[in-house]
């Protein structure tokens, strides 16, 4: 036989070998499967055990499926807006104002969300962090502590639209501040309070007592100890809580409808009509309920930006939290 024939022969052998191996593999797996199934169906009880396990696993698949469907919908429609090159797409999507016919980008919404977050954080964080410091470091365990904890838990459960109605009644109407950056930011700050307060409290509780005792033994006052030792030790935990709260309120629409107003530019003043501010969630809502087709596409782009912002904030929070727990444990 020529060399050519030989190579053919070996090729055939190799093919046979692969085929044989495959058949062998299929046989053993099917045998294994059959054995497994036989074992599972040995009695009524083991079989129902088996079926229930499958049902539970299916439940997890059903639970997680909507996540992928939502992400798929938003990404598949939103990607051209965020990375495309047309008018109002790509960098223009972030860098330009909506302009006539709302054909441009969503710079007003992105800037508005960031501004609202700055106002909300600068009001909400000091209040809740300092409140948590008081109830964990200063107050004796008892009425004050449990009252503040209870208030925080109740606050965490209040529907977002109730915060919106309250912000409208109190800040916009009663205090005569009008809609805009201040009213919207304060309303979001109230929503941040419970999350930051409870996570700060947890972080402070995890600081070992010995650190405080060492500082006090060196002659430091309670205030100096709290400020220089305890808060510093609990700092990563506090940052985690703050980021989680920011991620949560960033996507809130309902509290902003009656407090922040809306604008196609950026706020030009702190109070009055010029302070009306747009936000990403509000823009998504306004665009999606608009009959114009291209606005619905833009809404997907805005939703993609919002999801990315929220997930990045949450991711940073998670990374910090993981680092901290590793250090403590």
């Amino acid at each position, binding site marked *: 036989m020529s060399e050519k024939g030989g190579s053919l022969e070996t090729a055939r052998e190799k093919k046979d070998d692969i085929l044989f191996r495959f058949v062998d593999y299929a046989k053993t797996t099917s045998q294994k499967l059959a054995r497994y199934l036989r074992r599972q169906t040995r009695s009524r*009880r083991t079989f*129902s055990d088996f079926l229930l396990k499958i049902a*539970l696993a299916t439940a*997890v698949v059903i639970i997680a499926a909507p996540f992928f469907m939502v992400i798929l*919908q938003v990404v598949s429609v939103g990607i051209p807006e965020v990375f495309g090159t047309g008018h109002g797409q790509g960098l223009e999507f972030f860098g330009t104002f909506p302009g006539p016919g709302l054909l441009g980008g969503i710079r007003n919404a992105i800037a508005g969300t960031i501004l609202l977050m700055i106002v909300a954080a600068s009001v909400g964080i000091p209040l809740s962090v300092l409140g948590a410091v008081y*109830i964990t470091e200063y107050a004796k365990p008892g009425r004050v502590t449990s009252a503040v904890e209870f208030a925080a838990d109740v606050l965490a459960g*209040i529907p977002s639209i109730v915060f919106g109605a*309250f912000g409208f009644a109190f800040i916009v109407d009663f205090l005569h501040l009008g809609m805009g950056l201040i009213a919207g930011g304060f309303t979001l700050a109230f929503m941040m309070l419970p999350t930051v307060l409870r996570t700060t409290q947890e972080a402070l509780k995890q600081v070992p007592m010995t650190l405080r005792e060492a500082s006090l033994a060196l002659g430091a006052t309670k205030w100096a100890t709290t400020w220089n030792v305890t808060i510093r030790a609990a700092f990563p935990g506090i940052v985690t809580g703050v980021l989680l709260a920011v991620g949560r309120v960033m996507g809130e629409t309902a509290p902003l409808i009656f407090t922040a107003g809306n604008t196609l530019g950026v706020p030009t003043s702190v109070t009055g009509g010029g302070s009306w501010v747009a936000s990403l969630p509000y823009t998504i809502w306004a665009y999606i309920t608009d009959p114009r087709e291209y606005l619905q596409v833009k809404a997907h782009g805005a939703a993609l930006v919002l999801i990315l912002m929220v997930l990045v904030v*949450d991711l940073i929070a998670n990374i910090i939290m993981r680092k901290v727990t590793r250090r403590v444990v």
Partner: protein
Amino acid sequence: MSTSVRSFISRVVREIRTSKGAARIDLFGRFGLLISALASSGIIVLIFTFLWYESAPIMASPEGGIGIIFNTTWDPNRDLYGIAIFIVGSFMCTMLAIGIAVPLGIAGALHLSEFCPHRLRGTIRMIIEMMAAIPSIVYGLWAYLVIVPWIKNDLGPLFGVESSGLSLLAGGLILAIMLLPTIVTVSDDALRSVPRTLREASLALGATSTETAKKVVMGAAMPGIGAAIVLSLGRAVGETMAVLMVTGNSLQIPYSLFDPAYVMTSIITNQLGYAFVFPLWRSALFSVALVLLLMSVSFTIMAKLFIRWGMKTRGLR
């Protein structure tokens, strides 16, 4: 009382006068902290006060009174402010969502805590926590563009119902999806905090692993699961944007799953914007907000009672 307050104040004043340097900073810092603690918990009092104050006119007027909670006709043009229609809508939507989400969520939590391979567990937990982070407006967008047409084009004809898709069913489905992360994570935590020894004892007696999970582990974790359900009830009643976009918002009590509904959060969102110049109308909307507030407070208290029950009977947490 007054003498003790006076002595307290005089003591404080004396301390402020006599303290110097670090001690004075300590004292002032302490007051600063106390004030922020009081302020952050005072918000809840402020919210309650303002909603009460705003809903007082409708409660005091002849058109309203406490009876509006049982009246089902909402027509502000004729001074009819029955908010029962929204309470019923919210109730049905919530029950539908809870009916879907609770069995599914508990099943998922059982799988995660009892049967899931360790490596997969972390990934699934991460996905579910990310689901909780997705803003409700994004769920609303998806429901509006995917679930609603699906009900209109596929599910409706399947049952022979003519429906616009904007329906109680759409609201219930998207609410269920949004509740699942809460139910799964809270129940999973509760199931995992059940001591290992209980499972081992049950398995040693010859129970299969699902029998153990169903009867022993779930029984031990019942308070935690109860708290999860109550917490998600609160979230379901208060959810605004997603439900607003898909339930159709028509002033009727839904008699079938394909009928549109109007829930409490939607009526506030839709009408407060132009009702605020009409005292009674505005007041009626704030009374809806007050009902929502009272509901959410009672759900929070119920969840706390569940946890306390768990601590008392099972020593959990």
